[in-house]
């Protein structure tokens, strides 16, 4: 109990970070399955946009 009192903030923030990391990993896996890449710049306005992302439409 004392340990928890002393380390409560550490545990809480660590949990928040773990949840964030989990959500990021999940979204990345979802994106990959949907055929979207992690490409950082320019996909949205790319002329081939539709074909990169076609698997998600089907």
């Amino acid at each position, binding site marked *: 109990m004392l340990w928890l009192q002393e380390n409560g*903030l*550490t545990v809480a923030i660590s949990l928040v*970070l773990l949840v964030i990391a989990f959500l990021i990993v999940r979204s*990345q896996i979802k994106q990959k399955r949907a055929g979207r890449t992690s*490409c950082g*710049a320019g996909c949205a306005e*790319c*002329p081939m946009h539709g074909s*990169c992302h076609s698997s998600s439409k089907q």
Partner: protein
Amino acid sequence: MDIRIALAGNPNSGKTTLFNKLTGSNQFVGNWPGVTVEKKEGKLIVDKEVVLTDLPGIYSLSPYTLEEVVARNYLIEERPNAILNIVDGTNLERNLYLTTQLVELGIPVVIAINMMDVVRKNGDKINIQELSRQLGCKIVEISALKGTGVKEAAAAAVEAAQNGKTIPQHTFSGPVEHALAHIEEAAVHGLPEEQQRWYAIKVFERDDKVLEQLKISKETLDHIEKDIQAAEKELDDDAESIITNERYLYIAEILKSSYKKHKAGQLSTSDKIDKVVTNRWLGLPIFALVMALVYWIAMVGVGASATDWANDGLFGDGYHLFGIGTSAYEEEAEAYGDAMNAISAFYELDTEAENFDADAALAELKTVTGEGTATVTVEDEETLATEDMTVYFDKVPEDAGDDVIGMSFQDAVAYVEEKGFEEPDPAEYGVWVPGVPALVDKLLCDEEGEPRVADWLYGLIQDGIVAGVGAVLGFVPQMLVLFLMLAFLEACGYMARIAFVLDRIFRRFGLSGKSFIPMLIGTGCGIPGVMASRTIENERDRRMTIMTTTFIPCGAKVPFIAMIAGAIFGGSPLVSVSAYFIGMAAIVISGIMLKKTRMFAGDPAPFVMELPAYHWPTLGNVLRSMWERGWSFIKKAGTIILLSTIAVWFLSRFGVVDGAFRMLEEDEIGMSLLGRVGSAIAWIFAPLGWGEWRAVVASVTGLVAKENIVGTMGVLYGGGEGTVYQALANAFTGITGYSFLVFNLLCAPCFAAIGAIKREMNSRKWTWFAIGYQCLFAYAVALMINQFGGLFTGNMNVIGLIAALIVLCGMVYMLFFRKYQEATKLEKTVKI
């Protein structure tokens, strides 16, 4: 039932702009041909039952290019209820060539003459009624960019879809019509009446795909062939050329009575500009100048102050809101700095010593006697360069030079007597907004500044996440400025000219100018760049383009370039410009070398590209393009980069020391897990001048995403005394820094782009070959930069120099002495 309307027209005639206006969608509009490679669909804003299909820009319905095949297949197989044919009013003759074919399809056609505002501005006159009568379909005048006439055009197309019928008015010459009549009778009689003429013409042209589709028996084909040959003999030309010529003659005929050019024979403004910017000798220097200007504005002019604010303010100590209090603080900080330097010249002062007593120090300072001058060594905060400066004891002369501290020793003593030894705190001046690290400190630390969380968690958040993600996000302002200007250059039509200018150079080295379009797209992101190589029909050229496209720095590499330029080269914009020219040189050199191997031998495919007229882009279009690129960059910082910095921090701050696994001290990170792995492979990069584990690890994490190089460097070079930039300036010299920059620009792209290469190559072998070539080429160039650069700085390594000379000789041989290989014929059936 839904009404389907197809938007068809020449490349860059404004189809996508019209499509966006009518459907409210956000498809990218570029002022160069070939932006739309595949069809896109959207519903009309005013009538959701009307589906509009934006087809790729095409010059004809011949099946020669991917775009033509996509558009033609849609029109023939899907048979929309109407075609809205967008015609560029400033270039009627060539645009109407497609129109003459569309009206033969048996689908109602409405013509929208676009850019009418420009036509009127030029003083040209189009007789719409006469043109409409001659072509047999309704014509609407529009300006897609300004939005005038677009609703009327859509309404006319809907009406045509419901009740319209377009009957082709054009008749070919006697022999052709004779043959067409025979073909209609013998081969296409079973088709619906309105479609028979188009199919008959295609059979006359011996169109492979149509012949295959119609499955005409051999006897019938032989019979038809006699009629075609008879026409060819009579008109002394081949069937396809006869049709093309007669179409152009027909267009010339109808334009005679319906079009009057105000300045016939004179050059338009666009032509006049092109005479200069696409000039054989001036084209490339002008391009270099434009890019230098763009980078100067983005990296230095506007971007530097914005990025300084982001790096030093938002992700640093903090900033003065709207700059209120900055000048007062800077004045005070300069006076304090002068006072400390002046005192240091005559008295050994250590204000940070544990037993420092301000009163005692002041009393001692007052007893110091001296005269004349003394010297003090001053260190530049940014570059860490040192300089010896003179300090006067009693009074600084009025004509003192730049190498004199602006405060005398006695004035400095008076200063500390009045203001004390404490450094001025910027938070006490003006309106101070604390930076993210300070805000995080407030959350995680108690009143005495001690962390309320475990040390490892505090380190992870401050030195890992805030330092890593902050290092990447700090470049957002510069990137937005850069993206804004690149979007402007694309939209106004200048970038299309660069394809033209570069084609001349590329062609000489075996690459087609078509390779420039993937490169152009690759400046945003390598993935769509690699995918855009699909439009190159020649398999060898396509493979070579895929292999070389990622040499051009993509948006993700921009922060890395800016970081190296800022930390090692004093923020020079020339570093960024040189990155692009090194990318282009790498493409040209690779082009020559690869073309001389059997795998890539053969002439480059011809490159035909229409240069669009220059025009002012709309603000919305340019801002949207900038924001889309910028936003995906920010999103990436919050996902992949965040995860990577967490991983890098853990792996670089924990390790086994004396047999125990524990968190490491600042000076022990060389023994971390990452440090040990990095050190194990660092020797490979030693000949490049940066065989140090942190640089090696940063390069490796760049494979996850290129922004990661910056994030990783933020984590690995930060945390100690001084800023990341200072640590980088210490770790690299100009030559090793440039070698590091070039290697990371040219080596294998990120995993996502490697995936795109694998998809486009459709072969594991070719993918590995591409990655291997890129890494080897990057290594070779970086090796030469470091070794030959060492000759000038005296930092020479004989073995390394010999290796660099061998590489140089190999390249010179490949570039200038090896003969081009004879092309062996490569045939492959591609199903589209």
